[in-house]
C-alpha cells in the first residue's frame, strides 16, 4: 500500500510512462515557423477591370427602343493632372500649363508638395465624377487612358477614386483601358 502511494501511479501504469512530448513540440514549432515564413502576411486582393467588348450585329441587329446618347466617359491621366471626356467632348483646364507652355492646363491639375513631388488630386476628381454621374445615373462604366510614363500605382488610385461616391454609392466601378490615346 505504502509502495503504491510513493509511486504516484499504481500497478500496471508504472510500465507505461508518459511519452516524451518534446520532439513532437519541436516538430510543431518548426512547422508553424515554416508556414509563417512561407505565407505572405500582406492582405492580397484583386482589382477588376473589364475590357471593352466589340459590338456585334450588322444592319439586321435589333435597334434599341429608346435612343440614348452614351456617356462615353474617359478619364485621361496626364503628367500634369486629369482631363475628362464626356460624350466625345474633352474637358481641359483654361490657359496653358505654366510648367509646360506647349501643353494646355489640365482640368484637375496636379499639386506640388514641399519636396517637389507631384500629387494627383483624387478628391477633386471624385467631385467631378459625382457631377458627371448626375448626367446619367445608370452608367457605371468608364475608360482610363494615361500618358506613357504614368505609373501603375496612379492608375490604381484613379480606379479607387472612381469606384464609389463620397456617400459610398457605386460611381464607375467598371473600368476599361485604352492604349495610345491621350487627351491633351
Amino acid at each position: 500500500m505504502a509502495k503504491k502511494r510513493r509511486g504516484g501511479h499504481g500497478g500496471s501504469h508504472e510500465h507505461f510512462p508518459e511519452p516524451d512530448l518534446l520532439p513532437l513540440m519541436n516538430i510543431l514549432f518548426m512547422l508553424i515557423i515554416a508556414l509563417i515564413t512561407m505565407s505572405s502576411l500582406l492582405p492580397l486582393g484583386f482589382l477588376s477591370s473589364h475590357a471593352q467588348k466589340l459590338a456585334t450585329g450588322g444592319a439586321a441587329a435589333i435597334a434599341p427602343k429608346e435612343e440614348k446618347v452614351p456617356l462615353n466617359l474617359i478619364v485621361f491621366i496626364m503628367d500634369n493632372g486629369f482631363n475628362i471626356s464626356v460624350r466625345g467632348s474633352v474637358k481641359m483646364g483654361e490657359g496653358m500649363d505654366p510648367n509646360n507652355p506647349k501643353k494646355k492646363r489640365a482640368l484637375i491639375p496636379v499639386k506640388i508638395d514641399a519636396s517637389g513631388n507631384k500629387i494627383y488630386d483624387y478628391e477633386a476628381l471624385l467631385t467631378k465624377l459625382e457631377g458627371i454621374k448626375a448626367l446619367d445615373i445608370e452608367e457605371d462604366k468608364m475608360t482610363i487612358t494615361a500618358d506613357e510614363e504614368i505609373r501603375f500605382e496612379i492608375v490604381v488610385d484613379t480606379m479607387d477614386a472612381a469606384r464609389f461616391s463620397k456617400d459610398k454609392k457605386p460611381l464607375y466601378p467598371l473600368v476599361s483601358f485604352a492604349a495610345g490615346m491621350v487627351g491633351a
Partner: protein
Amino acid sequence: MSRDFRKRKKKSSAEVTMPSLVSLIDLLTVLLVYLIKTFSVSPITVQDPSIQLPISTSQEAVEDSVVVMITGAERRDADAKGKPIMVPEIPTIAVDDDVLIQLGENYSIPTQYLERQFVIRPLKQRLLEVRKQQGVTAELGSGEGFSGKIVFVVDRNVPYRTLSRALVSSAEAGYDGFKFAIVKRES
C-alpha cells in the same frame, strides 16, 4: 501551520515534476491547423522580392487564374548588417513564373518583341498556348469553359506604356477579364 509549510517545502524539493505539455500542444495544433487552412485558401502568393504591389481600397477576393507578372526595376535585399535595401534589377515579363522577356531601360519593350506597335508577341503566343491547354483541361475535366480571366501581378512603378501593351496582348489572346493583384487597404 509552520509544520505544514515545512512538509510542503520538503515534498516539492523532493519531487521535481515535469509541467504538463498537453495543453501547450493543443494550442500549437490549433495554431497549425489555422495556418494550414489560411495557407491553402489563398491561390496566389507574391513572393518575388522585385515586386511592390500597389495599395487599393478594392475588397475583391483572390481567384486562381493564369498570372502575368511584370517585375520592378528594384529588388528588396539586405546589406551586410541585415538592413533592408533596394538593389537594381532587370524588369521582366513572365507568365506563370516562366520568364518570357527581359525589359530594357525604363521598362521599355525591345522592338523585336513588338507586333503592330502595341502587341508583345511572346506574351500573346504564350497566352494562346495556355488558352489551348486550358481548353483541353476543361474538355477532360468538369467541362467548365474558358473564362477569359487573367491576373496581372504588376509592380507599382511600371509605366502605363508597358502595362497597356501587356493588356492589349492579353486581350488579343482572348483574355479580357483583367484582374490586378493589389494589397488591400481599408477605405
